[in-house]
């Protein structure tokens, strides 16, 4: 045993410090980096939200100027959606957990995985670069044309936004493809597709949604940049272009994007509900098919963001109906979760509290979603605070709460230390009440007619109190996040040892050490059920037969039945992903600043790096002595 472990360590552990920092291709490392980076962006987006809330706390004050207010809500939305929510669910939790849950040692393309992280980091830095030029994007997170065009937004500000998103799109697309191949080809022997954990299903469905939706955003941003930098007229009606083309392209991406953030969170919810009910999930097939059908339907509803743009009634009716249909699979999920809780023995711990908070909050967000899919109602509330309330109920309730639940649930696996339970409860209740206080009154102010994206309002009976309550709620959320940070620090210093499986969970990630070794599993498990640690613990010998990877190797299995096909050799630590991402970053900087030599040099470097990347490694010897 120790002999095998030594060899595994030799094969999978980075040889030195620099290679473990810049060169790491370990999915756990990359996942943790994603999580930490995304949480930093979360705090920054949160701070922007706080500033906006302070500005709106009382009528007619000028805590920030109108133009700064525009920059702040643009920044808040862009960072929260593109740099926090999407990367943390896919890149963060997905990277860390998918190979562990599948019972394998790494992602299918480990270097591509590292590449995708570096691109994400650099694109975040690029977006932040706009601060130093003194021109920050200020057109809202969806940058409607023609406001975002060269005529009404001169300067570099929107170029940071547009090029930053094209650049970030590379990272997300690459992750999506990597997940699809990993999930289909690297599952542990015996983990047929109907035994796959629900979280992995969430990531799989999301990855397909990414591959089909993201090109639309990339193309929209690219065409916008051609308009801005190249003088084309795609979105300029005076020269035959169409402003609605921007909205179509943006929302063809934008609506699936909601589910790209939401479906992995749904996976987290199903996982945690199963564990904290200590029973097999009710309606596995329903939950899977609901995720798949939500992802399909999400591509047919983008026009409901554009009801007020003057489209023909037929289109409005069609998209209103399509929007309502989504509530059916969503509703089925709710019932499956409730039934699981009903059937099981509930453990009242912090992760489950956040999940119940999610159920409550998302339910309200979902119901207001059905309301705004009714066209006449949407005409009334479009561009008001009602929409802000709806989208925050969906995104904070549907994504941020499951993320907190996921952090409380998996941090013991990631660090080996339990999080404090009483601080966790404080964290939950402050956050939950804060969310309701901050966002519920927006429904009412919205229906009273208070518009969104306006930096102040006139003192009106009712409106003033509501806005003050919202700001108080926002501060409660801030305190809750601070408590989380304190709780994490405390758990790092004095936390209780977690052990391998502190929650008595059923999925494979809990079969590894906490934190897992570089090679994840000493022996690759053979899977015979959906919750292998619950049903096969007694025959522990049976879940751990083969020892793949005396060299850096993993099993490749068939796509559906997961029969072992071959042992594939995995690439080790490499600086190429970093260099490739750096070349592409410099290419974008060159385009942004209009420095042609830099652009060309970066492109040449990029080709050279990819050349080195695809150059084959020396053959492995057939048998290692």
């Amino acid at each position, binding site marked *: 045993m120790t002999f095998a472990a030594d060899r595994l360590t030799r094969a999978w552990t980075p040889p030195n410090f620099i290679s473990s920092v810049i060169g790491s291709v370990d999915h756990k490392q990359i996942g943790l980096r994603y999580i930490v980076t995304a949480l930093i962006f979360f705090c920054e987006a949160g701070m922007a939200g706080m500033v906006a809330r302070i500005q709106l706390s009382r009528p007619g004050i000028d805590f920030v100027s109108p133009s700064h207010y525009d920059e702040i809500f643009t920044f808040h939305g862009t960072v929260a959606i593109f740099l926090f929510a999407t990367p943390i669910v896919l890149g963060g939790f997905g990277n860390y957990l998918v190979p562990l849950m599948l019972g394998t040692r790494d992602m*299918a*393309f480990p270097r*591509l995985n590292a590449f995708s992280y570096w691109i994400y980091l650099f694109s975040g830095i690029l977006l932040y670069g706009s601060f130093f030029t003194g021109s920050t994007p200020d057109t809202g997170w969806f940058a409607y044309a023609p406001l975002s065009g060269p005529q009404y937004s001169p300067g570099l500000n929107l170029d940071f936004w547009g090029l930053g998103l094209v650049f970030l799109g590379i990272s997300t*697309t690459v992750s*999506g*493809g*990597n997940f*699809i*191949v990993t999930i*289909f*080809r690297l599952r542990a*022997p015996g983990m047929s597709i109907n035994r796959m954990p629900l979280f992995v299903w969430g990531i799989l469905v999301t990855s397909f949604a990414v*591959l*089909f939706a*993201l*090109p*639309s955003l*990339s*193309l929209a941003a690219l*065409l916008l940049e*051609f*308009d801005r930098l*190249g*003088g*084309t*007229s*795609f979105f*300029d009606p005076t*020269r*035959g*272009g*169409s402003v609605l*083309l921007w909205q*179509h*392209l943006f929302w*063809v991406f934008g609506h699936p994007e909601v589910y790209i953030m939401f479906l992995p969170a749904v996976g987290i919810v199903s996982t945690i509900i199963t564990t904290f009910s200590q029973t097999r999930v009710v309606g596995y097939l329903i939950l899977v098919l609901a995720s798949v059908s939500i992802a399909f339907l999400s591509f047919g509803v983008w026009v409901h963001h554009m009801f007020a743009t003057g489209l023909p009634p037929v289109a409005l009716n069609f998209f209103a109906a399509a929007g309502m249909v989504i509530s059916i699979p969503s509703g089925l999920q709710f019932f499956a979760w409730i039934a699981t809780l009903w059937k099981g023995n509930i453990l009242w711990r912090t992760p489950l509290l956040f999940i119940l908070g999610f159920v409550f909050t998302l339910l309200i967000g979902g119901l207001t979603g059905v309301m705004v899919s009714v066209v006449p109602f949407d005409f009334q509330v479009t561009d008001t605070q009602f929409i802000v309330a709806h989208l925050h109920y969906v995104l904070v309730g549907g994504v941020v709460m499951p993320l907190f639940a996921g952090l409380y649930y998996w941090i013991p696996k990631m660090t080996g230390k339990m999080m404090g339970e009483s601080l966790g409860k404080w964290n939950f209740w402050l956050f939950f009440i804060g969310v309701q206080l901050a966002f519920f009154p927006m429904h009412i102010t919205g229906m009273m007619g208070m518009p969104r994206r306006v930096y102040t309002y006139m003192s009106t009976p009712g409106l003033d109190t509501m806005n003050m309550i919202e700001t108080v709620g926002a501060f409660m959320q801030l305190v809750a996040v601070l408590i989380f940070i304190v709780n994490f620090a405390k758990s790092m210093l004095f936390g209780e040892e977690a052990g391998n499986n502190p929650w008595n969970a059923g999925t494979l990630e809990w079969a590894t050490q906490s934190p897992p070794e570089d090679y994840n599993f000493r022996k690759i498990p*053979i899977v015979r059920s959906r919750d292998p640690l619950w049903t096969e613990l007694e025959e522990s010998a049976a879940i751990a*037969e*083969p*020892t*793949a990877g*005396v060299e850096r190797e993993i*099993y*490749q299995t068939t796509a559906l039945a997961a029969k*072992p*096909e*071959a*042992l*594939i*050799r995995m690439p080790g630590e490499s600086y190429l992903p970093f260099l490739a991402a750096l070349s592409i970053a410099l290419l974008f900087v060159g385009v942004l600043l209009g420095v042609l030599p830099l652009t060309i040099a970066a492109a040449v470097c990029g*080709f050279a790096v990819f*050349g080195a990347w*695809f*150059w*084959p490694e020396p053959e*492995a010897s*057939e*048998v*290692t*002595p």
Partner: protein
Amino acid sequence: MTQRPQVHGVTPPRFVEGTHDPATWGLALFITTEAIIFTLLFVSYWYVRSGSTAWPPVGDAPPKLLIPLINTAILLSSSGTAIWAERGIKRGSQGQLRLGMAITFALGLAFLALQLNEYANEELVLQSSAYASFFFVITGFHTTHVFVGLMMWAYVQLRAWCGHFNAGKHLAVTNVGWYWHFVDVIWLFVLAIVYISPHVAPVLP
């Protein structure tokens, strides 16, 4: 000597190249997203066109067809030579592989040269209208893909000279071939939509 790992008493073979290779899956997914970008470009083209009164705008002539048709012949035959090269290495013939890839590269280069020449002589002005924007951006985007494909062929040619390929092991050739065929198929859409359709139906009903 260690025993090779076993699953249910069966030793999985060490990695063998083939269509089951994860790299092939990765390539297929890459081509999928690229195809979606082109599809969206074409849909955008028709969307803007359907809202226009004149297409091309009054004063601009529809695109000339001679060079694009020659280019179509060039690109389609380059796909043929790419297949011929791959067939060669499947039989173990290094010479046929290298020659086939060299001809493919030369044909691709000819396409690129003709296309760039067209841009140099184009009377249409990029900044003049949405029609011109679409003309240049769609064809330019495709030309960029041809350029990237050419870089790939050069790279695989280099690897061929280093003796990386044999009858059982030539996945890179197959994959670059797939990418090249994809770029060719897209060209047929570019030809039909950007070059031919303004002649057939100047304005939609």
